[in-house]
């Protein structure tokens, strides 16, 4: 095949291929090892210290599982009163990877890796990142706006965090005998 013919063929194929789909296919569908590593580094900053390292790691690991089990195009809750059909958007993973890379880049620009920064530097970086992503409040569950607020929501909106906050075994939305709910919740051990 002559070079010109090859170029014409490539141009022809390119014209008919759904580029957006190709672009999406080229993006990561799962968090990369580097992204997961970055998330582990950031987690102790944004999750309570009382969790300790093991629980903090577990929260991140479960969040990674959450990202893997995300389904695109799933029908979301219709709502009641003013129902409407809404479907889940594309996986947030590519955005997450980019956001984590940007946070790492910002940390490097300030002189080192994330753990080496002081608290105010971390806050400043995250504050700017959240503002850029349009995050104003902690979402009720991971929403795909920013990976760090989604990690925070993943923990802080959980039944586990509710128990941690109230220092009580409430077990919100956890299947349990109804009789247990009639008593004042016992404190966490």
């Amino acid at each position, binding site marked *: 095949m002559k070079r010109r013919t090859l170029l014409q063929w490539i141009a022809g194929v390119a014209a008919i291929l759904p580029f957006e789909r190709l672009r999406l296919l080229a993006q990561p569908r799962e968090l990369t090892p580097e992204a997961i590593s970055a998330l582990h580094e950031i987690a*102790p*900053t*944004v*999750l*309570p*210290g*009382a969790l300790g390292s093991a629980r903090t790691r577990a929260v991140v690991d479960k969040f990674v599982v*959450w990202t893997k*089990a*995300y*389904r695109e195009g*799933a*029908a*979301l*809750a*219709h709502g*009641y*009163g*003013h*129902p*409407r*059909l809404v479907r*889940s958007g594309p996986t947030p993973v590519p955005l997450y990877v980019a956001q984590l890379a940007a946070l790492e880049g910002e940390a490097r620009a300030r002189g080192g890796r994330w753990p080496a920064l002081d*608290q105010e530097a*971390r*806050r400043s970086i*995250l*504050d700017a990142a*959240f503002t850029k992503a349009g*995050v*104003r*409040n*902690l979402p009720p*569950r991971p929403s795909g706006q920013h990976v760090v*607020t989604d990690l*925070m929501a993943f923990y*802080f*909106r959980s*039944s586990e*965090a*509710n128990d*941690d*906050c*109230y220092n*009580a075994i*409430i*077990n*919100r*939305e956890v*299947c*349990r*005998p*109804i*009789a247990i*709910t*009639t*008593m*004042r*919740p016992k404190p966490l051990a």
Partner: protein
Amino acid sequence: MPVYETDICIIGGGITSAMLAQKISELRPGVRIIVVEAGRSIFDVENRGRYRQRALDYNEHPWPGDYIEDQRAGGIISMTMAVGGLALHWGGACNRFSEEDLRLKSMYGLADDWPIEWSDLERFYCEAERRLNVSGEPSPHPEDRRSEPYPQGPIPLSYNLQILQRWAEQSGLKFSPLPMARNLTPFGGRGSCCVYDTCGEVCPSGARYSPDFTFRQLLQPKKIVLHDRTLVRRLVPHDTKSTIVAAQARHQDRPDDPIEYRAKTFVVASGYCWSAHLLLLSQSSRFPNGVANSSGLVGRYMNGHKFINATANIDDQTFPGQNMTHSLIAREYFRCRIDRPFVRHDTRVWESSAGRDPRLRSPEGKLLLGDELMADWRSRTKGSSVRLRAYVDVHPSADSRLTLDATNKNRYDDPMPKIEHRFDEKTLARDLDTKAHVLGVFNVLAKASNGRLVNSSEGDYLDHPGGGCRMGTDPATSVCDSYGRTHDHENLFVVGAPTTPTGGCTNGTLTFVALTLRSAQEIART
């Protein structure tokens, strides 16, 4: 064209359809019943735990495919269209109306009376409670006397609700656990409640009643035939007689092939929206305004109740998350003295975490991270938030309508319904006084435990809607009689929510079911 012949053709597959089919099959063993439902059957009970978890984790809808994309109405409160209907994901509240609801005209000169005696309806409330296995505590008000006890004792109050009951009763109102169709022990092939606390979305144990269980139980011994994913588009009247001879339908997989159902009796059990819609769609040269519509009232007097919400902050300590779907109810204001300005409403109390959830920023705008966020959250958990709500009795005007919307059509080119609620003049005239009264009650409640209201709001839709085929004794002012038999067609019935002349001031489902069971008795007899 497939033609199905049957004794009774029930159009619609929600809770009233389930109750109707169940009771008729008991009263008339061997009678042929076909239930035709536009939506699909979702009988995979074994998957509900997984669906629930994905709803919690991802906000996914826990009833996959329970809607038909092009079968959309304006002004509806839920998109669900499936076997089980809206009661697949109702909360299970089973409050009764009160005698005043049936006597608004004669007692207060308002709206219209229902053509039923309270003592008559009360018997069917008892039956509805038995069939739904309602858990409840008798009302402390003598006017709410019952002829039978609840089939189950009340749902045990959570620690939080015990605290809130003590708090709320300092107002002088008496609060009871909300009656609910929730199994405390296994019943009717369904499990017992283990406080998943997602009753309003999905109940994995089946403790909260949902009609899919009843349909499955009727299908197995072949007491009914269920045709799901089949949309009835027209009722066909006899050329000369006053009967309906057929229902014309299409199956979702064969949209070009008409199906016909021929039956001795047709029952429209399609809820507040699709019942009137079907009657209006069934136009012919003899009935240019649709069937059962000689009064011109099909699609009119659409009703429901308004609701007013508030949040109170109190000093008493609760632990949000114990049983957030259960509540307390006071029926004090179901009654209104005839020498006082008219106002009727229920009064409800829930545990709540409103205003006390974790937040990303301090009031000054500082980004909160890790320990700071947890400390901020903890600092706001002292005391409790309390969710308050009142369902308010409002009355529709004749212009409160469901109409055919020519700008919104489905795949068959049928105009979809559009609901626009309107109130009668007296309701509008007392609106401000009603709001002031309800907020006054909330303020009295809030005073105990150093409490105060921190916000209030008014719902922007009518809840528990009904109407559109209202019942009455006069064919000139109503669509059907008290059994739901249409005045115009002796073998056509409408049951449940559409037949209600007014919407009451508390959850409507138990009333819709009680009315339907009463209709079932009549349909089985004829």
